[in-house]
């Protein structure tokens, strides 16, 4: 799957989990850029992304992300 398509699918997950149709996620987006992206929402996002792509992250991987682009790198490294 190309990177743009993964980002598109992640954006749809964010819209669903954050319950906000207006959310637009970009590679440079960080948690601090999105009002609703708090620690509990973060868990819901990770679970939803793991389910959607049928992958599993490690806690070390998650802690290493500084923005959505780094999450995308991690997803692509898992063969998506």
């Amino acid at each position: 799957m190309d990177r743009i398509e993964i980002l598109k699918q992640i954006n749809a997950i964010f819209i669903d989990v954050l319950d906000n149709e207006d959310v637009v996620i970009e590679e440079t987006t960080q948690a601090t850029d999105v009002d609703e992206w708090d620690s509990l929402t973060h868990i819901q996002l990770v679970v939803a992304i793991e389910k959607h792509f049928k992958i599993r992250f490690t806690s070390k991987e998650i802690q290493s992300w500084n923005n959505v682009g780094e999450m995308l790198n991690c997803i692509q490294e898992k063969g998506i």
Partner: protein
Amino acid sequence: MIFELGQKFEESFIISDEIYNGFIHTFNDKNPLHTNQQFALDKGFKGVVMHGNILNGFVSYFIGECLPTKNVIIHSQEIQFKNAVYLNDELQFKSEIIGIYESVNAIEFKFDFKNKEGKTVAKGKIQIGLFK
């Protein structure tokens, strides 16, 4: 990890007078479906229907008291009500772990409640977090 995928749990619950009246006293939902025998009969039920959210209380008890750890918090819960539940019904609760997300210490369960006739009265999913 103390949990494993496919792990199953079972409990049984009875909707007693104490629970039914306690729910009404606590939340003040006296809708006639739950309190007026004739109204409930007229709507095609066998008697006053128990509040569906009493079952959510049992789910809360299951997560809070029946798992092998107390280090838990409910993240989300969804429930569908399939059949009416009546006073003093005995319900069999079954749950199974359907997802383990170690990266964020989260566990997902599916569950159902069956009555004595074996009919599913409610089913749903719960996601919990585990404190470190």
